[in-house]
């Protein structure tokens, strides 16, 4: 049921008020209103249990691996807050229905409001701290959207951003703190943590955890020095300010302090920080509020001040302070929300909230003025209102707590009396400077009048509550405050009695002094409207939260912009450099201190041939670096390195690799030379010597590192997993060439992936070259022809002779692949080499015509067929209820040919073959097609850029 109450506004309220709102504004408001009323009814139905001091717990698993579960707890404290949220919510729904202008989006407002209400209910009901953080962030997000409701106003956007940055940042800190706390306690449920209080507080991580959580609470409740976001959030529509920034969201921080109180209480840091932050905020904001000319600005600072009061009380830690704090939460909501609504009414009627331009409104709207008067009396703490009662209690607690201290015993009462005086002064100003104080100072064209009752009823209701509680506190508020405060403390409270009259004592004297002094301060300031000339914004210069925040944010943006510019220079050359340098650094960081040395594996002596090849390899590499600019020579030299590589494979018993490397070498050298025909033959010298040295050093370091790594690996014994493949290749895979069996059988899925990559690369080339035509010269710089005038006879004859042999040979290589070196990859490459030879001998056009290649379409088809065959072979296994690519083999006896070793893997290998041939020929033919002979003779390297024309 608890979960249902939260889900109702979260899902139904949010979605339906949005959906229905596009049809009818009234229906949207009605829907939001009924959802809220149902929630109220739901919470009221728990009243009997709550009054007996019971708590209702709902547990449901969500993400148990993280300790994040849906654990909701309804006890006195959360019940009081839930009712506060829903009751004020229902009043705001009514008020907003009249407040919103025809051009304002009603569905957006109600939908966001429902979302916010659900999030707030989630916060107060969560027993699991991670769940609490989830809802906490949801309140920050929905408040961001609500503050930015009038997105066309720059100050609304700025205010929303700032509120999100401050409260969201605090929420992030809080998440860290909650996780730490959960780790310390071994549970994420508050009700279980409370029991472990001593153990938790003894942990060395307790203080960091608590500080992080306090950061979340104090930012949310706009405590000094994080208070600045709240006044700027006043750019929100007034119903939002009345709901979020006076009654509910800003109290989430206070609520959190109350909820964590049984865990944190008694710790010296908790009391010190919370009391100090509360006291500073309380006094500072009360003072500033008096000098705000904007009605909502005054109310915002007054709210900050009252939140400071509650925070101060929570920090005090005296037995009855929690009672006072809880009581003040209720009272503050009941007088502050109507004041915001009145400010909204004034704004609605006069289009101004500036008290310097208002005044004399009593004549136009006497009822509104009366409402404002009573609510302000509550704010000032005039006897007969509920504000007086909680203020008395707070004075009593503050005086009592510091009574034995040497100088705090007189300093604290003095300070809070002064703050009380300022609070009286701004309360008087709010009423007097708006509704009285001469005539309306606005243009005469404006004729304000009483708003419709729908806008006044919510205020009226709350103001009546304000008075009734003020007169009959024990009867009306006593039980609620008692269950809430005892749930907050987690144990029975000492006897207390809410009443109007406590006899003559110091707190009463402080109240009287505050009232008189406040009246005098205001009288002095309003004389000849002196206060209207003062601008509080300029007093603090640059030392304002908002300014510091903006400087910090701008600095961050600038710094990250500069960093990005430095890192993202747009030069691929430097990207490669930094990438490699970072990789070398990262590996070096691990390898350097490990002091690994040569292993103990016996080494294999090298013979003379190997030594000669090694010397040649070194010379080749040296020459490549020397003659790097001479491109034709480097292509040949790189090809030579490839040959040495394949000879290495031969020498080290890897015939499959040697064959593959050799055939790949042929095709890629052809490709490089074809590419070179369209590129300059010589690279310009443009990199400075210093840069070259830098590059050379990095290359040497990386090369030496890779060499060292391979030396370390090769000189060590290791546990290979290959025994499995060696043992099972014949019995399970049906082949004695283990490499091939691994490729097409054991790891067939990998191979399938790899030929898919091959196919994608081929198609990528095809797509890349679409529509590109480049002309090349027919001769190089020395007048040597790049293509034959007539294909030479000898080459044509040889090519014609080689083709059938090569094809037969590739069939042979393919067939024997399972048992001898060979297989689909190698056979495919051999076929491709043979066909490339035809291209060279007959020329591009003729061979394409002979093969009916249709501009490469044929090769795309081969590629597709290859992949298709491989895939279908894999799927075939499904028909035998086996997983994808399970192979089968047999040795059928065929007439004439005799016994044939046949495996389904061979069919898969056929797919590999097709893909390899298709992809290779596609790459070559596409490149050949692009490169067309230039009509002009002897003009090397002409690049016609038809694509750009």
């Amino acid at each position, binding site marked *: 049921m608890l979960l249902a109450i939260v889900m109702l506004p979260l899902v139904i309220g949010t979605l339906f008020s949005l959906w229905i709102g596009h049809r009818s504004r009234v229906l949207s408001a009605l829907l939001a209103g009924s959802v809220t009323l149902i929630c109220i009814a739901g919470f009221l139905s728990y009243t009997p249990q709550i009054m007996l001091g019971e708590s209702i717990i709902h547990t449901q698993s969500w993400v148990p691996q993280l300790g994040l579960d849906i654990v909701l707890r309804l006890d006195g404290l959360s019940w009081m807050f839930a009712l506060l949220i829903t009751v004020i919510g229902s009043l705001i729904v009514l008020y907003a229905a009249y407040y919103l202008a025809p051009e304002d989006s009603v569905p957006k407002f109600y939908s966001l409001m429902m979302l916010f209400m659900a999030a707030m209910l989630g916060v107060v009901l969560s027993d699991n701290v991670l769940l609490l953080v989830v809802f906490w962030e949801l309140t920050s997000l929905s408040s961001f959207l609500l503050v930015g409701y009038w997105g066309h106003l720059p100050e609304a956007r700025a205010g929303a951003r700032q509120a999100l940055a401050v409260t969201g940042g605090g929420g992030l800190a809080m998440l860290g703190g909650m996780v730490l706390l959960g780790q310390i306690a071994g549970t994420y449920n508050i009700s279980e943590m409370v029991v472990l209080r001593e153990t938790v507080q003894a942990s060395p991580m307790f203080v960091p955890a608590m500080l992080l959580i306090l950061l979340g609470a104090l930012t949310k409740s706009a405590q000094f020095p994080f208070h600045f976001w709240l006044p700027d959030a006043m750019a929100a529509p007034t119903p939002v300010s009345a709901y979020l920034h006076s009654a509910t969201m800003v109290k989430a921080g206070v609520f959190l302090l109350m909820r964590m109180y049984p865990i944190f209480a008694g710790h010296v840091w908790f009391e010190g920080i919370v009391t100090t932050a509360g006291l500073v905020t309380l006094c500072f904001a009360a003072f500033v509020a008096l000098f705000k000319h904007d009605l909502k600005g005054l109310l915002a600072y007054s709210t900050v001040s009252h939140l400071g009061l509650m925070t101060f009380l929570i920090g005090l830690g005296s037995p009855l302070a929690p009672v006072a704090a809880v009581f003040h939460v209720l009272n503050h909501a009941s007088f502050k929300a109507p004041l915001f609504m009145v400010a909204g009414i004034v704004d609605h009627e006069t289009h101004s909230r500036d008290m310097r331009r208002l005044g004399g409104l009593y004549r136009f709207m006497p009822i509104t003025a009366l409402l404002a008067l009573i609510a302000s009396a509550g704010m000032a703490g005039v006897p007969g209102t509920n504000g007086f009662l909680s203020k008395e209690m707070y004075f009593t607690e503050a005086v009592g707590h510091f009574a034995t201290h040497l100088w705090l015993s007189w300093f604290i009462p003095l300070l809070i009396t002064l703050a009380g005086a300022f609070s009286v002064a701004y309360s008087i100003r709010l009423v007097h400077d708006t509704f009285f104080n001469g005539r309306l100072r606005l243009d005469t064209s404006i004729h304000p009048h009483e708003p419709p009752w729908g806008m006044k009823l919510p205020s009226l209701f709350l103001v009546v509550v304000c008075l009734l509680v003020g007169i009959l506190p024990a009867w009306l508020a006593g039980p609620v405050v008692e269950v809430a405060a005892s749930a907050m403390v987690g144990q029975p409270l000492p006897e207390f009695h809410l009443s109007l009259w406590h006899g003559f004592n110091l707190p009463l004297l402080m109240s009287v002094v505050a009232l008189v002094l406040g009246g005098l301060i205001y009288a002095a300031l309003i004389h000849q409207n002196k206060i209207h000339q003062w601008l509080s914004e300029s007093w603090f210069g640059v030392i304002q939260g908002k300014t510091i925040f903006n400087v910090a944010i701008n600095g961050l943006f600038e710094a990250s912009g500069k960093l990005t510019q430095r890192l993202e220079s747009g030069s691929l*050359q430097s990207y490669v450099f930094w990438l490699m340098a970072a990789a070398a650094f990262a590996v070096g960081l691990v390898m350097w201190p490990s002091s690994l040395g040569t292993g103990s594996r016996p080494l294999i002596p090298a013979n003379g041939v190997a030594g000669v090849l*090694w010397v040649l390899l070194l010379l080749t590499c040296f020459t490549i670096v020397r003659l*790097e600019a001479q491109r034709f020579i*480097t292509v040949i030299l790189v090809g030579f390195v490839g040959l040495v590589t394949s000879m290495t494979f031969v020498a080290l018993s890897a015939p*499959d690799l040697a064959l593959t490397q050799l055939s790949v070498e042929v095709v890629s050298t052809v490709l490089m030379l074809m590419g070179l025909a369209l*590129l300059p033959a010589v690279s310009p010298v443009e990199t400075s010597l210093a840069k070259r040295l830098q590059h050379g050093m990095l290359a040497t370091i990386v*090369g030496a590192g890779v060499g060292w790594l*391979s030396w370390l690996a*090769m000189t060590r014994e290791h546990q290979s997993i290959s025994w499995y493949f060696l043992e099972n290749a014949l019995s399970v895979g049906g082949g004695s060439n283990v490499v091939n069996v691994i490729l097409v059988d054991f790891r067939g899925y990998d191979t399938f992936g790899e030929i898919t990559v091959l196919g994608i690369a081929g198609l990528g080339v095809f797509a890349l070259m679409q529509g590109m035509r480049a002309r090349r010269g027919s001769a190089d710089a020395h007048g040597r022809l790049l293509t034959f005038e007539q294909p030479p006879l000898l080459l044509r004859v040889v090519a014609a002779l080689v083709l059938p042999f090569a094809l037969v040979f590739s069939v042979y290589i393919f067939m024997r692949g399972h048992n001898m070196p060979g297989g689909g990859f190698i056979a495919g490459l051999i076929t491709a080499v043979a066909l490339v030879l035809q291209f060279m001998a007959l020329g591009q056009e003729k061979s394409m015509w002979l093969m009916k290649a249709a501009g490469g379409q044929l090769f795309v088809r081969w590629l597709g067929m290859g992949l298709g065959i491989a895939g279908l072979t894999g799927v075939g296994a499904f028909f035998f209820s086996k997983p994808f690519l399970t192979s089968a083999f047999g040795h059928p006896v065929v007439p004439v040919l005799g016994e044939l070793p046949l495996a389904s893997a061979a069919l898969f290998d056929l797919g590999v073959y097709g893909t390899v041939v298709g992809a290779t020929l596609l790459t070559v033919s596409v490149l050949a097609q692009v490169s067309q002979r230039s009509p002009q003779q002897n003009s090397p390297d002409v690049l016609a850029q038809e694509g750009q024309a």
Partner: protein
Amino acid sequence: MISIEFLLATGIAVVTATGLYLMLQSRTFAVVLGLSLLGYAVNVFLFSMGGHVSNAQPILGQGPLLTDPLPQALVLTAIVIGFATTGFLIELALRNRHESGSDHVDSLTDAEPTAPEERA
């Protein structure tokens, strides 16, 4: 005594360094060649991870000593994919030159169109 392992390790080191040096050059063609060289070095590096045995047999049933087939299988596909990458890169270099009029990796247009000896 000079061992096969020493020759391999130093060979891998030199080819890697050469390949990386070419990759750091400013023109696309050098990058293609550099990547190709780096591919050789990496393939031999991976191949060597299995450790080497002298006079081992690659095929079952031909002798008592067998090579480690797993690195070979891995490297075989790596060679083919490396080839596909090289092919793709060459055509990317061409397309780049076609679009930007320069074969500089950062598509910078040449201040001087070509080196002097090429115009001769």
